[in-house]
Structure formats: C-alpha cells, structure tokens
C-alpha cells in the first residue's frame, strides 16, 4: 500500500476510534470487545484460561493449537508406515479366513472371487534413534521420525468415504454434527481476533491422485452457532470470501465509506438502544482489519530462502500442499487455534504403485518441513501436528494384481496416523497390527480416542465440552472415546 494512503488510513481510523470512544461511551466500547480476549495477554498468568464458552480449561494444556494435515481418501498404511516384511511370501495367495474373520468389506471387492494378498512393492528403511521402519516413499518424514508418534492401530467402523470422513471430523457418520475445529472455536476460542479460530486449507490435486469429494459439512458447525464453522482460505480469488474491495475502491476510500457507515450506525444505536448495533459496528471494523491482516498472512515474500527451500520446490505455488504447510505455520504463529490442511487423492483402488510415489512426493517434504520449521521456531512444543485420513487400505488387492501393480480397497480396521509436538511423546510407535496389517493386535486407537486425545492436549476433557441440542448434551466423541494415555507426554 502507498505509504501516504496508509497514513491517511491510520488517521481516519484514529478519528473513528476517537469519535467512537466519546460517542459510545467507554462502557459501551468495552462491550464491543470480548473481555476474555482482553485477558489474552494475561493468559500466561492463568494457563487454564479459556477464550470461548468453556469458563476455564479443564487442565493445563500442553498444546495451544493444532495443525492437522488431513490425508483425505485414506492413504495406504501398508505402503507408507506399517512394515510387513513377511507378506512377500503371501504374494497372490488368498487372505486367510482366519485373518478376515468374516468382517464386512465394501461392495467394491466383496464380489471378487478372491482376496489375493498384495505385499507392498516399496522398500522400507529404519530411521531415527529407535530404528523406526518407514517406506522409501517418505524419505523426509523418515528424517523427522524421532519427532513423531506413530499410531499404527487407528480404527473406525465406516467403510466408505463420505460416512468415514464425516465420522472422523465430527464424531458421527451422519451429517449434522459440529466438526472438531468448530468445537474448539466454540469451547476455547482463539487468541487472534483478526483471524478465524478454525482455518481450512484445500490443497490443489496433485499428480498420482485418485480423488474423492469433500463436503462443507466436514468443517461445518453442525448445531453450534454457525460462526464457529471453519473458514476455508482459498487459493483462487480472495483468500477469504469477499475480502477484496471492488475494483476501483481502494482501502482509503473504503475507510471513508466505513466512517460514514459507523457514524450512521452509531446514531441508530443511540436511537434504538439495541446492543446488536454496537456489535455490528465492531464487526465492520474487524472486517476492515481483516482486509489488511489476511493479505499479510498469505504473502510469503518475507520468508527467508532457507525456509522456503525446506518446504520444497512447490512452496511458492499458491494452493499446493507445500504452500499450505507453510501457511499453516504462519497461521500457527498468529495464534489460529486449529488449521486443517486437506490433501486429497489417496484413494488408490488400482495402479497404486504407479500413482502413490508422485503423491508422496508432493506430501513428504512439506510435511517434514513443517515439523522442522515449527521445531526451529520453538513452536513444536505447543503446537500439535496430526497427520492422517479417514481410514486405511486393504492388504488384499482390488482388481489386477501382478508383480508390477495392485490396488487397495478401503480398510477401516487398522490404519496409521501420526501426531507430533504439543503434549505428545516423540519417537514412539504405538500399537501393533497383525502380519497382514488387517487387524489390531495391541492397543487399538479408535477415531473417538484420537479426538479425545487431541482435546486432552488442548486442556479439554472431551466429556465435558458439550452443547445442549435437541434435548441432549452433545459432544465430539458422542458417548465414546478414551484419551490414549500411553502417548501423552
């Protein structure tokens, strides 16, 4: 912005605030501001302070914010994390009935005459101090494995995308419940008044993707007040819907229009006495601030070259997963409570070996860079990073199986996710699956348990963040969920 305009802007704002302070009266002005927010600075003094509807956090939080790298469509745990060297002997042999145990499978493969085992084509190497096995597809994440807590025993009941992704995001397979992020916005709010508490970033579809749809409900507020729903920062057009002034209207002109608007609304407030008018005046001021703070957020020109390099070659390309990972860090720096980066494309029903390497390439380096970057800035301690999708994939091949190719169907009974940072033990592999990565043999972690654990890291008891609706106190984990104590630092 032109510095002269900038100055004019400051002046008009001062004018406005000055007028407002005398016009509305100090008490009324104070009522425009969230008193809990004013206390944000003193949050350090009270670690259990809440900025949302919870009067107070239930215990001292380890994490102040969450970044979830959401691997939509269900990445194959067998080709990325869950090393099963014994499977090579089973190539093209039928999955033993003793393993499947008659459990239901999707109608995409239930009609196959055989369920032949497809061992991963990819080599695994040991990484880190504990020698954790990681696929050759993930060299960068292998490099930060000591910071990760791998959960191999994630499980869910849903076997199809739409219900499964709705389930992990909202705690119910049926549309209508609030998403995790909206629960956080509602429950504990966010320390940054100029940005949403819950931000969603959609990554452009990368090479090697086999992609399903997403749904607005996945970051929706369900029955919570709709202001708690996630705000998708967009990579095309305005990052926030309707953020930019129309062509031909610069920020100084907008300020002048807003000054006129504020004066007239102020008169209406005096006339009518409805505090909602005061709130509206404040919202317009905040909108004006967002018009400056959001472009500042999405402008990565100030990032140093070393940082950019770390996220890989696509980082400067708006909308890529790499760019979004960097943006997630910038959002975390600004105090945004929950950022969810969606990367779609893991639905590899066929030709998995031909496709998954490309998608891993788009994901691996930026995800590892985010960990390193947060760590370098001292932010990993209080930022919880989550990686994973709605379910895993089957050990048996869907469609063609030969030495070169195979496909994998949806698998809900075990899949791998990882957590890192705020409140989670690093360098841990939690839980065991059987030799076919088909069933959990030790320490299952249900998606409700995961959500309970995420809330726990943020200082929230998952059974006590509730909302009365339709005659019942609803919560994210429905009537389930146990904090996974083993992995909590």
């Amino acid at each position, binding site marked *: 912005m032109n510095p002269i305009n900038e100055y004019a802007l400051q002046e008009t704002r001062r004018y406005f605030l000055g007028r407002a302070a005398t016009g509305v009266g100090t008490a009324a002005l104070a009522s*425009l501001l969230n008193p809990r927010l004013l206390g944000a600075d003193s949050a350090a003094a009270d670690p259990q302070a809440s900025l949302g509807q919870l009067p107070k956090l239930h215990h001292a939080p380890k994490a102040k914010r969450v970044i979830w790298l959401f691997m939509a469509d269900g990445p194959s745990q067998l080709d990325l994390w869950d090393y099963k060297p014994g499977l090579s002997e089973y190539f093209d042999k039928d999955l033993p009935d003793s393993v499947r145990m008659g459990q239901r499978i999707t109608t995409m493969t239930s009609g196959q005459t055989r369920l032949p085992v497809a061992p991963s084509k990819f080599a695994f190497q040991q990484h880190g101090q504990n020698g954790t096995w990681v696929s050759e597809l993930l060299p960068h994440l292998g490099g930060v494995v000591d910071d990760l807590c791998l959960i191999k025993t994630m499980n869910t009941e849903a076997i199809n995308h739409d219900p499964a992704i709705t389930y992990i995001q909202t705690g119910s397979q*049926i549309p209508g419940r609030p998403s995790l992020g909206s629960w956080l916005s509602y429950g504990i709010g966010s320390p940054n008044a100029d940005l949403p508490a819950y931000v969603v970033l959609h990554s452009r579809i990368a090479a090697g993707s086999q992609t399903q749809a997403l749904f*607005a409900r996945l970051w*929706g507020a369900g029955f919570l007040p709709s202001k708690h729903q996630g705000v998708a920062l967009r990579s095309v057009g305005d990052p926030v819907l309707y953020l930019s002034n129309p062509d031909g209207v610069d920020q100084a002109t907008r300020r002048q229009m807003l000054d006129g608007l504020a004066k007239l*609304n102020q008169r209406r407030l005096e006339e*009518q006495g409805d505090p909602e008018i005061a709130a509206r*005046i*404040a919202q317009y001021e905040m*909108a004006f601030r967002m018009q400056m703070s959001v472009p500042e957020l999405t402008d990565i020109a100030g990032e140093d070259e070393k940082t950019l390099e770390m996220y890989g070659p696509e980082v400067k390309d708006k909308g890529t997963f790499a760019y979004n990972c960097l943006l997630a860090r910038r959002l975390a720096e600004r105090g945004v409570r929950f950022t969810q980066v969606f990367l779609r494309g893991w639905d590899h029903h066929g030709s998995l070996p031909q496709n998954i390497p490309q998608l891993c390439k788009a994901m691996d380096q930026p995800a590892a860079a985010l960990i390193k970057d947060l760590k370098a800035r001292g932010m990993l301690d209080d930022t919880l990073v989550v990686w994973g999708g709605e379910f895993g994939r089957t050990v048996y091949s869907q469609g063609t199986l030969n030495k070169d190719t195979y496909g994998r169907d949806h698998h809900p009974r075990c899949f791998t996710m990882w957590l890192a940072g705020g409140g989670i033990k690093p360098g841990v592999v939690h839980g065991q699956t059987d030799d076919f990565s088909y069933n959990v043999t030790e320490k299952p972690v249900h998606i409700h348990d995961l959500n309970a654990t995420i809330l726990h890291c943020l200082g929230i008891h998952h059974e006590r963040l509730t909302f009365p609706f339709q005659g019942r106190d609803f919560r994210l984990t429905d009537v389930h969920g146990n904090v996974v104590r083993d992995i909590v630092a």
Partner: protein
Amino acid sequence: MEIRHCLTLCALSLVAIPSNSAWAEESPDFGRDIRPILSSACFKCHGFDDKTRMADLRLDTLEGATAKLESGTTAVVPGKTAESELIRRITSTDAGEKMPPADSGKSLTPREIELLTKWVEQGAEFQPHWSFVAPVRPELPELKQHAAAVRNPIDRFVLARLEREGLAPSPQADKVTLIRRVTLDLTGLPPTPQEVDDFLTDNSPEAYEKVVDRLLRSPRYGEHMARYWLDAARYGDTHGLHLDNERSMWPYRDWVVRAFNDNKPYDQFTIEQLAGDLLPSPTLDQLVASGFNRCNVTTSEGGSIDEEVRVRYAVDRTETMSTVFLGLTLGCAVCHTHKFDPVTQKEFYSLYAFFNSAADAAMDGNALTPPPIKKLATPEQEAQLKAFDEQIAAVNKTMADTLAAIEYVDPMGTPASETLEPKEYVWIDDAAPSGAQLQGNSEWKFVTKADGQVYSGEKATTRKASDLSQHFFTGASPGLKVGEGDKLFAYVFLDPSDPPKEIMLQWNDGTWEHRAYWGEDVIPWGGTGTPSRLAMGPLPAAGEWVRLEVEAAKVGLNPGAVINGWAFTQHGGTTFWDKAGVVTRTPQDGQGFDSLAAWEAYEKAQTNSQIPGPVKEAIKAEADKRTDDQKKQIRDHFLQHVCITTKPKFDPLRQQIDELTKKKAEFDATIPISLVMANMPQERETFVLVRGAYDKPGEKVIAAVPSILPPLPEGAPVNRLGLAQWLVDPQHPLMARVTVNRYWQQYFGNGIVKTAEDFGAQGSWPTHPELLDWLARDFIESGWDVKRLQKLIVMSGTYQQASKVTPELVERDPENQLLARGPRFRLDAEVLRDSALFVSGLLIEERGGKGVKPYQPQGIWESVAFQGSNTQNYKPDGGDANYRRTLYTFWKRTAPPPGLMTFDAPSREACVVRRSRTNTPLQALALMNDVQYVEAARKLAERVMIATSDTTVAPAGSSSSAPADRLSLAFRLATGRQPTGDELAILNETHATHLAKYQADKPAAEKLLAIGESKRSESLDVAELAATTLVCNLILNLDEVVTKE
C-alpha cells in the same frame, strides 16, 4: 466453501442471563422447574431407560420416586424433606454420597437444590410433561393495567405476563417502521416508497389491516413462507452425499410456494407431504407433495452396503417427521431407549416402520431422477403433447387413406410361388462397387481381352505373385446384403504355366474373419476348419474360367450380414479374377420387390428379419390360416415399406411422422420430473436395530405411534397416511403447538418454546404456555388456516410494538422473551439478497422453475467436488439468473451458496427448524464486496440519479440540492423512511469525499461501475455515479437496512 466464522469480539452473546430467573415464582411448578432439573441431572441413571437405571431408582414417576429402595431409604417422601434420600444426597458434602456424582459432569446450583427442596416440601407433585397433554383453550387473562394495549387475544397473554413481571409494553411502532416490518415479514421484501406513502396517508382505522391483507394476497408471500419450510424439509437441488449430483426436486419446491399462496389448510399440507401418494387417486400435486419424504440426502458411493444406506434414509425420514411435526428429537432412540423423553427404542422403530417400506433404491445411481418419480405436464404442455398426437394421427390417416386407395395387383400372380428362386446379383464386374477403397500388396491390375483373360464384361483383374499376395477393397457402400441360404460366387482363371499354391476369398462385414480357400493350406490367417479359414478342396482346374461358390453361412456370414469388403488372395502363381457377387433372394440396393408374393417368400426364408413382429407372425402363418387382419397387415406393410411402385408414396408421410415423433420427444423431455414417495408393493418387515446397527436386527415391530401420545385415530390405515391423519387429529397434543410455535419464531426471533425442535423434557419451557395453547387451539379450530394465523400474529399489539429498547430492559430481558418490545433482528440471508435486488430495481420476479445459478465466487464447488460429479464446476447461468429471488438459487448441498451460508443459512443436508443468527465480519465483507451487492448499489445509484434528474421538485419539506435528493431517495428506498437532517449530512459528506476521489480518478470510477453483468447507464456522469454507488453501498450496509426494526 462457507465462511461463517465469527471473529467476534462481541461480549454480548456471552452475557447470559438465566432465563428462568426473570419469571421465577414462589412455588415450584413440576413441569417448568423440577422436571428439567431431574431430566438434566438425574434421568441418565434414574430415568425412563431401564437398561441404564442405577440402584433401581427411577425419578420420572411418582411411583418410582416414592418407592422403598433396596437400601431401605426412599428417594422422595412428599412433604418430608428430612426423610427424603434425594434431598439428603443432593445436599451431602460427602463426595462418595453426593448426587449427581462428580464423574457425571453434572452438578446442581444452590437455586436448583432450593427448588427441589421446596418441591418435596410442598408435596412433590408429579405431572406429566406439559407437551404430552393436549392443549385446552385457556381463558383469556384479565388485565389490571394494560388493557388499553390489547389489540387481539394474543396481547392479553403477553400483557398479563408483563404485568406479573412489573413491565410495561412499548408503544406502537411508528407507521413507517410498522409497514417495513410487516412487509418484510410477510413477503421477504421491503415496501416501496409508494406503499409507505399510501399507508401514511391512510388514516382509517383499518389502514394497517388493509396492508396486511394486501401482503397476504401477494404471490411473494408464498415464496417467503416456503423458504422457512424448505429448511425443515431439507430441500436441495443435489443428492447431498458423495458425488452430490443434481436431482430434480424443484417441482416440490414450487408446490410448497403454491400451497402457501393458496392457503392450503395445514392439515392437508401435512397429509399431502407425508402421504400424498397414499391418498385415493392422488392428483399430480399430491404426488409432488409426497416428495417431502424424498428430500433426504442420498448416495451412490461405490462400495456402500445397500441395507446400511437404506436404514439411514428411513431413520432420516423418521427423524425429520418427528422434528417437524412432533417437535421431538428422537435421534437418541435410534441406538437406545431415550434417556429423557418417554420414547423407547422399540417405539422409535415402530415409527420408523411407517417409512421402512419406501420404494426408492438405496443407491440413487447419481441420476437426475432416481425413481419413484412423476412427470409433471402442465395443462398447456398436455395440450401441446396432444397436438403432436393429433398431427401424427392426421398423417397416419392420410397414410391409411392412401393405402385404401391403392388397388394392388401382384405382377407375379397369386398365390406366390413357394419356391421363389434366388437370383444372381453381380457386385463386382469390370469395377469394384461404389465407395470401395482399392488396396493390395500392389495396385489393382485390370486387363482386357486384348492383354489377358476376361470372363464377363470388358475387364478382369489379374495378379502375379511369388508368395502371399492379394488385392482387396473395403468401404463399399451400399454393402452387399446377405440373406438366408445365399451363396457367394466369383470367377477365377488360373494360369496353367504359373499356378498358385493356394487361392483364397475373404469377405469383410466389419471383420475379415470370413475366408474360404482352395488348394494347399499355406495362408496362415484365421483358424483351420472354422469359418475364418474354410477349406473348399483342391485348386480349380487351371487354364479355364471356373465359378467358385461358397455358402455364406459356412464362412460365418449369416442372414442380415452386410459385406463391405472383398479380397482376392493367392499364394504364388498368376490369377485372373472376374464377376463376383451373391446368389440371393434378398433385394440389393436399388432393387426391390414389386411382387407381394415374392417378398413373402423372401421374408419366410429370413431368420432375423427386421420387419415388425405382428407382420412377421402373419407371414409365418399358413396363407389360408391368416386372419383378415393378418392379411391386411402383410399387404399394408408391403405397400408402405417394400413395394417399389407404392413405397415412394409413403416415404414422405413416414418422414413427417418421424419428425413429429422426434419433436414430441424433445418437447416431452422439457417437461419437469419430480421425485415422489411410494411404498414397495410388499411391505418390509421392521426390526429394532440393536444399537442402531443395520446388521443387528432385534425384536420385530409393527408400525405404531409412541404410547405416551394418543393412539392412531379409529379406522386410520396403519401406514404413512394413517400417521399423517394421527398428526392432524384435533386432540394431538404436539402438532398444532409445534406449528404455531415455529410461525411465532419467524416473527419474534424466538419461539414461545425457544427450542422449536424440541418440545420434550429437555426442551425449553414455554415463556407463555397459555398463549401457546390458545394459539394452538385457535389454529386447529380455524381449520388449520395458515394465513389467518399469520394475520392474527401481525395484527397483535405485541407484534406492533416499537422495538426501541432501554439498557434496563436489555439487562432484564436480552432476548426479548417477555415481549415488552417489538422484534428487532438481522434479516435472513435470502431476505438480505432479495431486498438489495428489489430496491435497486434488479429483481426479476419470475416464479418457479429449475434452480438457477447466479454470481458465485470462483472455486466454491471446484475445491471440494468429486471429479466427475455433474456439479463439479459452477457455471453461472448469467443474465436473469443473477436477479431471481434467492429461493430459486441452485442449492448444492455439499457446497451450498456461500453468500447464504455467510448469513447462517443451513446446508439443507438435514432438517433444520431454527437457524442460528450470527453477527460476523465475514457478513460485513459480503455486503460490502460481493458483486451481487456492489452491482445492486450501482443500480440503486442509477435508479435514484435518473429518478431525480428529470424533476426539479424536491421532496416535500426538503430544500436540499440534487445529490441530497438522490441520497434521500436511496435511503428511503432501503429503509422506508426519510433520513434526518443529521443523517443526510453524513451521507452528503461521504458522497462529497467519494466524488472528489472519483473526479480525480475516472479510471477507478469506471472500474467500479463495470462490476456486475448489467450495463451501466451511459448517460450518467461517471464520477458522480461512482460516488453515489459507494454511498448506496454504504446504505445497503446500514444496520437499519439489514435489520427488521
């Protein structure tokens, strides 16, 4: 992608004033005060559900609460707090004894403990939950102070309450505010200045009522009322799950609009939607109405298990019915017996049984019209279809007349020879047939008698080869038709001095797999001993012309085959080829039958004849056994389609029929289709699903209503129709209350029962229970007259109060539940957009039809959609679609219209009867910057500039200059009132600042004015228009404009 996040600093929503404290009274009322405490804190373990009941204690009935417990104590001893274990436990300081236990997350406030104590003290009276007892028409309360404020019976109840609270009602709102409020409330649009003026100058006592009656007659009324209903009905234009493809449901939406405008009685409205398909001989409209049950989200995701999905649909339909009509949320009972309301899991599945025989498939097939569906022709369309039929019939008549006029005599005589001899048809002689593309190892070489051997005509072809070699063609058109028993032939002459090892003929009917060879088997194509390489024996004699003949069927060329290519192949040697073709009864191109008898014989020999079935049957019949009709069929078919002498008479007629038929089909495709409800012919059995799991059926149940509510009416069928009749029974305790409450909520922001979706034990206690019952009874007794109910509400003094509020009253009653003032709240998403279009003059009031796609920011659908969904890419319709009422905006349920989501519209994936109402900066951004609103501001600016340019007469009482006139008019169009001098000064000042800017920067002005598809008025000064546009943008953002005052 929606952006409804609030970055709010606003503390106002946090100022929670315990709503009960405002009207707490001396003696606790069981329903109002005690049951909610027990329900919230105790019923989970001591309630209705015997599976989770602890210590064998139930506190939801008198018997349970006063029963002697195993411990020897008694929870409640009426009148004796000291002996009541309940009181001892809730007041205990021993953590092991204290109730509710700490790990329940529940605790009682001192006030709640006090209430419980008082209740036991006063006799612990149990009453059934109020909403399960049918309402009786209460006496109108007598008023002590405010009787003068009474306009109709509603006010008596409201004022009585205010008197009890020691509050006074507000005075009547000024007339401008009033007409704007009621116009917005009844039509969703603001009044025009003319309408305001008319009202202001009408000093008759009926002035207001006249306005109300006018608005109730407006077709806009139905559009506005429908909008609320469509939230409840979860109406959308896509399936809502997975691919989220488009579905054709909009005729249902239009039906709802019509139903409101026609003032369809609410009982009928209910019956037709829940069970229109089960009514005796349902009308088209009733079938469309039954689409209410088809509005649920559906999927076709690969891998889904049908039964699981189908169960979800039935659960959704059951829950929607119960939320909308019963005000009960039975979702909990899907998995277990309801903890708080007396509905068992079994009873849930008994209700579910009413919806469990739906005929729609689990997988919607991602289709636009997944059955059951109904095609909906308007009378005009029916007439058009009929007109097509008539035209077709007329041509058919001409055809029949022409037929009748022909006196046909068979040139071959009758009866026809049964042994009609096949004839030779020469296809290749001297040249290849038309269209043939000549190919070969080397070019085709023709010889004449002068330089080689010729059998027939002028020329033959020849080929000299050292090994495998051939010449051939493909692409002949028309092709050679093969019939029953046909023989293919060709003439060959082998050079005796250079005979080949092998010769081969090949035919192409799409493939070349039809071969016959003579001589050695050295050409490797095809399979030995199959029609693709048929051995014909030794080479024919050399040095002479030999006719080769091959039965077509033996080389796989069956009747009906059409040959387009022919190859002459040899291995070594020198050959001459001549005249080739087929021996056939089949008329080839350019040939035809003129003899009926010949044709009959031919047809008889065909095994896959293309002629119509009945004609075929007739021909097959013995000639002397044919009926007259069969004879006629044969003759008619022959004369029309076959006979070379008569066919030309019919060809143009048939062409006419083909064209008409095509046109009719095209027209037919434009007739809308709507998804409707239907049951399977055979009802499905219904079982309790253990923990709600589709694959764990438990006890078998039959369709029934919950026992806490009245039984099905005598004689009512046990199906959806009976269920609907049960709902509208005048003695039903919930139906009318729930309905009037939702309407009340539309006007006042909150229902009398705030939880409009939940009238159960956990729902809010009604603020004015007697008023609710009075309205319910009145509604029923009026014959469920919806318009009358709306009129009753807006005619009340309560509704007509000024909405101005004092700080004291805000503190006392922030949500205006006591109604000491008129309603004041932000307009809904649709009303905001429609109003902006209306005041700017952009609104196009075309009613009904398919959903339209107005402006939408880029990437809303694309960023989430399934690749391959037919709603993956948003393509704005452009033109009028930008300016239609929001009701008609296309609604994709997984990515709903972002401008509406910003203002709290629901996604329409599930039934919603109460929208939230937020106040966020994203709303400010939308109203300031969305192209829809920027364009509206410009058109409003143009409108006021043009309106004030040709008049020098300033509005009465104003002496302002021209810009002031414009700004006043714009203000007035948007708010209904004149700006005050002070307000106008601010508008003028802002305008002057903007004008200075745009005079100095015309390109900026032009850019601003280029926003939106509509063209700007070129006659207006650019800087002036831009400045006025921005002031209009300001006006459209005024709190007063976005608020119903």
